[in-house]
């Protein structure tokens, strides 16, 4: 291990040296400038299973930061300061992420951290940050524990969480005629959280709500056929699932053959943008799906500007994840401007009351002071074929405001007190 660390230090110093040789102008001008840049450390899993999504987060964040830097930087008490990003890959491993966090803060002298696509990583980095009084801004990882029972002063999150997403789906379905629900969710903490949140919301909002079957295939199942027949045998009116990625794809392909989508309505929680693209024409029409940022909506000029900037930068179309990154950057920049500094405690105080205008249907979203969770509104729609795109899109889009789906401050504080 030690040898590895040494090697990586050696390699990075060689790299920095090479960069200095390659771009002498940039570095000398940087030293000549009176104000040093604000350094932001990114803790993200850019290699591994979720690397594509994870890179979208990072690139979206970069688009906003580039915007700011082009204008000369962000206005602080001392004047304009540019923002510099330092990215470290944690390969989805919490222990590597904590090591990265330490290195970013102690050696790279970053002012604060952003990132995390995996819940496990966010929880690990968050507890390190709590101990060391370092600000961490979560942009994607969804476990509600991070801002509820395990929340603290030093963590913020701009994306929604499992509690909010499940409740948003319940809000959406309270006026729909389905009461007999079947469930199929991946058998690990994420699947259970989404299930519990939705069931909790439905029990409150929908009279006559009934669970007719619960299926728990494990993550990475390649054969869903017995689950599908069991689901159909229970004859639910609608099915709720938080299966995602490969699992969701396999489930859809196999369910089609059984005519499942003709017999019952299906709500695929995260079958919005992240799944529509890889599924292409194999997707099914009439599925309820959630997303936080459908890229064709609302078609505002800001939306279009982001789309173009993103495409110029990366050569790809933005995804939901790119928007999550972009919004996280908007918050951070707004916070620094308000505080006039990137100093941790002052920045936290400023961030606690920051609102931004998103370029997603969610509209204006704010940080909630008590738990540092943003009220990012979710968007539900129905899948439909669109000749304009090589994949399906969502129609009849409805925005569910974030605030009513959040757990109350009193409940969260009571949970935190209990956790201690």
């Amino acid at each position, binding site marked *: 291990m030690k040898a590895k660390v040494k090697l990586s230090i050696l390699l990075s110093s060689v790299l920095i040296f090479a960069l200095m040789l390659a771009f002498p102008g940039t570095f000398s001008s940087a030293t000549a400038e009176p104000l040093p840049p604000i350094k932001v450390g990114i803790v993200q899993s850019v290699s591994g299973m979720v690397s594509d999504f994870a890179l979208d987060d990072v690139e979206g964040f970069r688009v906003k930061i580039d915007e700011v830097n082009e204008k000369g930087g962000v206005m602080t008490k001392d004047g304009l300061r540019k923002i510099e990003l330092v990215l470290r890959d944690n390969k989805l491993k919490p222990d590597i992420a904590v090591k990265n966090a330490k290195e970013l803060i102690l050696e790279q002298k970053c002012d604060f951290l952003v990132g995390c696509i995996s819940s496990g990583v966010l929880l690990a980095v968050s507890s390190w940050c709590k101990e060391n009084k370092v600000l961490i801004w979560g942009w994607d990882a969804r476990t509600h524990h991070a801002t509820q029972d395990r929340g603290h002063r030093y963590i913020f999150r701009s994306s929604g969480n499992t509690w909010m997403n499940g409740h948003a789906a319940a809000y959406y379905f309270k006026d729909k005629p389905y009461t007999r629900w079947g469930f199929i969710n991946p058998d690990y903490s994420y699947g259970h959280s989404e299930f519990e949140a939705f069931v909790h919301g439905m029990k409150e909002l929908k009279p006559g709500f009934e669970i007719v079957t619960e299926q728990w295939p494990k993550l990475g199942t390649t054969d869903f056929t017995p689950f599908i027949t069991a689901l159909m045998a229970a004859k639910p009116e609608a099915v709720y699932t938080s299966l995602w990625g490969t699992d969701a794809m396999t489930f859809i392909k196999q369910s089609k*053959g059984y005519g499942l989508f003709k017999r019952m309505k299906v709500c695929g929680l995260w079958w919005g943008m992240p799944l529509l693209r890889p599924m292409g024409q194999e997707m099914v029409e009439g599925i309820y799906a959630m997303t936080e940022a459908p890229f064709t909506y609302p078609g505002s000029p800001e939306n279009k500007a982001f789309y173009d900037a993103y495409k110029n930068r990366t050569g790809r179309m933005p995804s939901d994840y790119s928007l999550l990154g972009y919004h996280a950057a908007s918050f951070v920049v707004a916070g620094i401007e308000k505080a006039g500094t990137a100093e941790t405690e002052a920045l936290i105080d400023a961030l606690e009351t920051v609102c931004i205008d998103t370029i997603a249907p969610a509209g204006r979203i704010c940080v909630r002071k008590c738990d540092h969770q943003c009220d990012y509104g979710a968007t539900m729609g129905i899948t439909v074929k669109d000749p304009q795109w090589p994949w399906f899109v969502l129609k009849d889009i409805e925005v569910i405001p974030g605030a009513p789906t959040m757990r109350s401050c009193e409940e969260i504080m009571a949970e935190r007190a209990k956790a201690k």
Partner: protein
Amino acid sequence: MEWGDFFFQFLSGLTTAMIYFLIAAGLTLILGVLKIMNFAQGGIYMLGAYTTYTFMKLFGGTNLGFCMTLIIAPIAVAVFFTILEIVLLRRFYEQTALYILLMTYGILIATYDMARMIWGWIIKTAPMPPMFQRPVEILGRFFPLYNVFLIFMGFFMFFLIWFITKRTAWGRSMRAAADDREMTAALGINVPLVFTGVFGMGAWIAAIGGALVAPMAGMAADMGIEGGIIAFIVVVIAGLGSLPGALLAAFICGEVQAFGILVLPQFAIAFMYLVLVIVLIVRPWGLFGKAVIIK
């Protein structure tokens, strides 16, 4: 719940069983003849799926394209692993079993990284061929035609392997080499060649399993590890090296899982392991295996 639901659950279980059988059949064949545990089997299955994806993209996802892919992709994978056997594995047969375990495990990890390098991390799926895109109606319910095809292919492969091993000259030398390597070699049969052939055939069967799964599932590089574990469970329940045992064990695993899901969904995943535990306690040598008495 009507009895039709039970029948459908049975059919679903049968589909699962056939996938299990195809992954396990190659393993049990290699184990029976070469007497080695091939950890790479799951990786072969995974590569079979990925090459199917590539070939189907090449041929454009038509019916003919699918048929051609089903022939070409598994052979391509089998050839690749046959070369690996000649270059890497062959020299370790006479060594202690540990070397082979490490080597095949190493190959598994290598295939995993190879798949990631070639196909990347984005989830892939091969298109469903048009001829299978309609369901058949059984008891007023829909059953995917592709699953019918899969069940047929499972039985077809069983009889094909059975025929090759029991009714052909090559199969006879295979069985002879399995029984007594030295005596077979003394009779003028090229034993290393037979071994290479068996390894290649084992790889081919697993790759067919992967190829058949490709149009119905999403692919990820780690499906090989998952597939490998199931293959081991099936082979252990079957009795090491027994082909009919593998079919029966796959059938039991598939159906136990299917009905577990129907009756007690919260514990569904445990049922297969429960069968494994019971077999290991009651008949440690497996359903069709021979008891070995160690003196």
